[in-house]
């Protein structure tokens, strides 16, 4: 299921000659989607992703030298997104939850630079006990309601809530351990 993620079509509208953009509108057109997806992968909801993407482009386009190469523009947009995301976490939760690293070895518009969530989650789910994995799949990946999930799992709604709560706690513990 998640493996198919790589095949999501990306717009390839490139209006560039000799590796440079002709206008700021081309810069936007060519880069808006990957910038958005990079941010979405780190906030997990569209409302914040839209706000932050708008902030990146409103902040980035004005000082941009249009003579910069495509690669330079992309590095600049990623750097701007990093700054904007860090400010978002400071303002909302008072601490950094996720970040956009600046040691990206891959091009900013490549899948591996945009998001590692699919691989991360696949590895995580594999190691969880069955019922924990199932409830997280239903709730987070398939966006099913708690009621539907409970029915699917053959348990009460109250139990489904507890199960989801415990599953997320265990998953978070395993994630943290991986990082250390």
């Amino acid at each position: 299921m998640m493996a198919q993620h790589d095949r999501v079509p990306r717009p390839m509208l490139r209006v560039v000659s000799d590796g440079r953009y002709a206008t700021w509108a081309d810069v936007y057109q060519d880069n808006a989607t990957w910038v958005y997806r990079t941010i979405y992968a780190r906030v997990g909801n569209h409302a914040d992703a839209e706000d932050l993407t708008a902030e990146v482009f409103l902040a980035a386009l004005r000082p941009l030298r249009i003579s910069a190469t495509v690669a330079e523009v992309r590095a600049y947009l990623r750097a701007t997104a990093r700054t904007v995301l860090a400010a978002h976490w400071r303002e909302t939760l008072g601490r950094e939850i996720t970040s956009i690293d600046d040691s990206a070895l891959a091009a900013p518009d490549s899948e591996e630079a945009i998001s590692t969530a699919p691989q991360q989650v696949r590895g995580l789910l594999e190691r969880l006990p069955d019922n924990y994995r199932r409830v997280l799949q239903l709730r987070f990946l398939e966006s099913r309601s708690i009621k539907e999930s409970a029915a699917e799992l053959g348990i009460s709604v109250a139990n489904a809530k507890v199960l989801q709560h415990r599953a997320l706690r265990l998953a978070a513990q395993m994630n943290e351990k991986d990082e250390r």
Partner: protein
Amino acid sequence: MNARGLRRYIDDLLRGRRPRPFHPDDFEAAQIRTAIDLRAARLGGDAPSEGFLADLRSRLSAQMNNEAVTPPRMSPTRRQVIVGTSAAAAAAVAGVSADRLLFREHTGESPTTANSGELVPNKGTWRAVASSADVAEGEMHQFEVGPLIGFVRRVDGRAEAISGVCTHQGCRLWFDKPDGSLRCPCHTTSFTPTGQVLTHQLPIAPRPLPRLEVREVDGSIEVFVPTPPSQPS
């Protein structure tokens, strides 16, 4: 501990609503991180909506077209202030990231970027930038070769080279000989001959100038010029 804040945050994520701020502890932050990963792993769930893209395009169009005529707003909203500071912060990293990208894009391994941003490309060629005789002790010799603009000088007999492009917005630096500093014509930033920031008037200090790899062979000074990144496909 803020169990309610966390529950609400997760619930908002699941319902596709904007999550509400609270102050999570370490473990709550870890759970949020995991919840975000889970949501972000949905197939195709991370695509921007067409409506949003079109709306932002028209906002940008308004910004870019009114650039010259719009005076600063009198009472900026909080969001506008944030945009302002982000712009400054973004601008501060723009030059250096573009600089670095040149070397990082195709090297295949992480360069040592600690503070001075020393460049360690592994694909490229040594190119002569001056004859040894041209670079006397204390002289600042400017060169331009391939994608690189820089200065080479001699310190205790050894050649040293740094980037000649401002780390703020990529303007070309000039050497102010009487002052002994590298100056940026764009925002009055100045650097020492070693690349450290000497003076600046920016909200955030720009990064030091990256050092370049340099060697002296057969009477000429050579700088390692990385292969320019081919255009990403």
